């Protein structure tokens, strides 16, 4: 499937078809064993390791000419790395791109899950820095693989218990471990734990790519995803004291924007598309002026 025009030297979506086939096989295996980390022969990509190479390889392998791609970083479409990855796929695959969650067929993300519920004909591709949820408890891959094989997750529960013993609550706020279909403990990538419930019974296929660590894993649609907790210390998500200052949304994840050096700040939606849509349909927040200038 060579792309015509001036891209004769690179295949559609950059990767050669053999590589895509290898990655698709890894993805199929990952879907078959939800939450299990499948090793794959990750390629060097033209962007640095740690900057989304795993997500980019997964996206490149599932992307077709008719897809519509959305790329977000920190929930926003216009953060520099999201811009860069979107531009990459426009260049090497010439696909349609969008910032609207509802219109995208593939959404590549770093650190957030969109606020708008996803549908069955969407794929959410996560960029993953450290795929191993047990890595900071046990640095050796040889050991952690064994622990997963034996379903030996006691260490993780001890860690969470120690958090409670020391602080009164679990001190993990992002990359909060989940258990998938009652079997594998999985790292949801460094999304805030606020987003964890969105993974549970999600209609969309969720794919996770870790390029540097050479792992792919997946959550098929409508799969049970449970955040680890204890009966007497149930899992809970962050709650914000005030709604979004621009669109007045509550129950969404907010970014804190520092306005001056005297403690002035505002809280706004981290999901920029969600926020813009709400403002278009007439929602007005406390600090939403007619133009940007009034905010300053």
């Amino acid at each position, binding site marked *: 499937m060579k792309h015509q025009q001036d891209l004769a030297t690179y295949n559609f979506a950059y990767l050669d078809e053999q590589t895509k086939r290898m990655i698709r096989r890894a993805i199929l295996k990952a879907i078959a064993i939800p939450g299990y980390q499948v090793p794959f022969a990750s390629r060097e990509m033209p962007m640095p390791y740690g900057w989304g190479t795993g997500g980019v390889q997964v996206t490149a392998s599932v992307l077709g000419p008719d897809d519509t791609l959305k790329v977000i970083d920190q929930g926003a479409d216009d953060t520099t790395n999201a811009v860069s990855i979107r531009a990459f796929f426009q260049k090497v695959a010439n696909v349609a791109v969008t910032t609207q969650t509802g219109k995208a067929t593939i959404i590549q993300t770093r650190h957030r899950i969109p606020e708008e519920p996803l549908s069955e004909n969407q794929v959410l591709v996560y960029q993953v*820095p450290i795929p191993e949820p047990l890595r900071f408890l046990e640095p050796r891959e040889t050991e952690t693989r064994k622990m997963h094989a034996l379903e030996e997750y006691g260490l993780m529960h001890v860690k969470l218990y120690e958090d409670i013993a020391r602080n009164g609550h679990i001190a993990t706020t992002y990359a909060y471990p989940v258990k998938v279909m009652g079997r594998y403990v999985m790292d949801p990538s460094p999304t805030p734990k606020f987003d964890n419930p969105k993974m549970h019974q999600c209609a969309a296929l969720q794919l996770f790519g870790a390029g540097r660590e050479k792992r792919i894993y997946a959550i098929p649609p409508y799969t049970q995803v449970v955040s680890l907790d204890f009966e007497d210390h149930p899992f809970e998500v962050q709650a914000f004291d005030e709604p979004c200052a621009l669109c007045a949304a509550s129950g969404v994840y907010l970014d804190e924007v520092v306005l001056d050096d005297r403690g002035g700040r505002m809280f706004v939606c981290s999901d920029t598309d969600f926020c813009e849509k709400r403002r278009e349909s007439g929602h007005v927040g406390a600090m939403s002026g007619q133009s940007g200038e009034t905010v300053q």
Partner: protein
Amino acid sequence: MYVAVKGGEAAIDNAHRLLADRRRGDRSVPAMQIEQIIEQLGLAVDRVMSEGSLYDRELAALAFKQARGDMIEAIFILRAYRTTLPRFGYSEPVDSGTMQIERRISATYKDLPGGQLLGPTFDYTHRLLDPGLMGDEAVGTPPRREAGDRQAPRVSDILAHEGLIENDSDLPDDHPAGDLTREPLEFPMARDVRLQALSRGDEGFLLALGYSTQRGFARSHPFAGEIRIGEVEVEIDVPELGFSVCLGRIQVTECQMVNQFQGSSKSPPQFTRGYGLVFGQSERKAMAMSLVDRSLRASELGEDITAPAQDEEFVISHADNVQATGFVEHLKLPHYVDFQAELDLVRRMRAEFLASQAGDDVADNGVEAAQ
């Protein structure tokens, strides 16, 4: 708009234009030609080829120029190109015994068949700045002589005649060589894949690890059995022809460390080997690689694992500078979503801490902490 990152697209474009400007520098100074880099900065080109795992001087020089002389950036650019190339097949093992030698030294024998050849080395130069190089001073032609047909057998082969050194490898002849660019890394690794990883590993990292073994962290009593630099033929087997054909010649540096070994429950007392092979001329890298190769053979030889240089997972997982630089530098990407989650937690924990300090006076402190 309120967010500073708005307009990221234009900002990226402008940043890249500024980068191109800085790369070119003062326009009144002639632009550097690729040939100049290949000819006059050859060792930089060699390192880019070696750690970029692609033998092409022209492309390596281009990457070096494009990277403004940043080694790891150049290696990265070359790797990202290499990964898109199709694989036609795997070459036959190169025979370094038939190398067209430019430099060959042994620290274990005073003289040996084939002789010692110093070649183009910095060794024994005095590191005094040379004002002559400020300009374009003429350089004389070095004396040369005909190579003749003197054979230069490998020092390890000389030792092997007496059975004093272990065999080259325990891998069977029909063992298909692994390919770490095509298969996922898994631990423990076979030595062939480990050597591939070391050969493209970061020179500085391997140098430090090799050095650590000399200072007692997994001491391996090494002798530089032989270092040779020169050209070898690369042959590929063509099934249709029934014989292998030569694809061309490449320059490599090979180092064979000879290490003292007391013997263990698994092996008799004999010398053991550490092996280093890299593209181009890079003695430091080849030597460091052979020290680390030897130290990583600890479990194979039944030695106690006590030091970082013996720990395969530690060494191989962190030797690749393209991976390392990517992950270290990714810290400059925005992390404000996660940071927000941490801010929230720290504020909450501080509030609880202050409340517990104040005892009954909870309400006041709660308000204070919330501000």
